[in-house]
């Protein structure tokens, strides 16, 4: 299935079923992330419930400290 992550197209395997799966796939699991799924900001506990479908748009932001 093909989704858009931070503006870029991404082909993902069928094993990646939900947002939580996507985070693991992208190896971002150790960062606190702000995630928007089809323009809806998700709480952390919703990551496993948010099922991915072809054409979905996902935005991922994380905070950094450097200046």
């Amino acid at each position: 299935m093909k989704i858009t992550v931070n503006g870029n197209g991404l082909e993902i395997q069928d094993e990646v079923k939900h947002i939580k799966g996507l985070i693991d796939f992208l190896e971002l699991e150790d960062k606190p992330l702000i995630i928007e799924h089809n323009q809806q900001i998700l709480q952390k506990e919703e990551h496993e419930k948010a099922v991915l479908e072809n054409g979905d748009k996902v935005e991922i932001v994380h905070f950094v400290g450097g200046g």
Partner: protein
Amino acid sequence: METNRYHRQILFAPIGEAGQEKLIRSHVLIVGAGALGSSSAEALTRAGVGQLTIIDRDYVEESNLQRQQLFSEADMKQKMPKAVAAKQRLSEVNSHVKIDAIVGDAEIDILREIVPETDLIIDATDNFETRLLLNDIAQKYQKPWIYGAVVASYGVTFTVLPDKTPCLQCLQEYIPANGATCDSVGIIQPVVQKVVSQQITEALKLLTGNEAALSGKLISFDLWKNEHTEMEAEALRKPDCPSCSSKRSYPNLAYDSRLKTAVLCGRNTVQLRPQRKQTDLDEVAKELKKNKQIKLFENPYLLSFEVDSFRIVLFQDGRTLVHGTMDSIEAKNIYHRYLG
């Protein structure tokens, strides 16, 4: 006003003569004079803000020159405090701007004095302890502040407006844990300019009375990965936030949340802040010179010396940086051995 100086900016219709007048009457506080702070300060100085206050606790080192645009090799050789070096350069760029340079930590007492006098705070710090303090003081005095941060090729920024947007405390669960913000992965200079472009455009909108043009979004990008993200942040506001809700108590202004020692991320350096004490650097230098092993350097703002594998830098306000360790106990031991 010199008629030509701001001509192109005045021609830009959303600013115009009226906007330029507002700009000249405004006072901006920039916290941090590293990469983001240098670039922001230069942009606002050229744009013609009336007054700039710059706070920074550090001095210029060689590895800064790749991205911190206000500083020169001479500043590095003389170990100039960044705030002082910035003021010198900015005064050459635009002598009409009143610039106040403060060498020290952005701590509560000093912010309480300055923030009520300012129209806007630009965040150019490198740590969340200071950002949370800025957040609460900005909420308390109802001032906007603009978060900006960079690492590697990634940048993120958000404009916090009192009573209108979520604040940083609302977003606290997304702040990385201590240490995770260390800049051990380096940084490229263009990402600094991109974050500052965003911050300063927002600043110009705010200062010239164009609030309606503000982005209102949490913006992040990775220049190397060609990613750009904008997110509506309203959903992140916490109705019971201790910093911005009606039940506010400003937890980040509590004195006990201040650290006396701070490990400076990614720099192999510990800062020690003894009880506020002005230091006579000449006196200290005289004592240190008795030890023939010590290589001493002094300028009007700080003194620096090397012993074993450590380099110790003492500022007039008593703050001391111990380079060569990330261990605050080791740093304290060295401090007590040489500086009492």
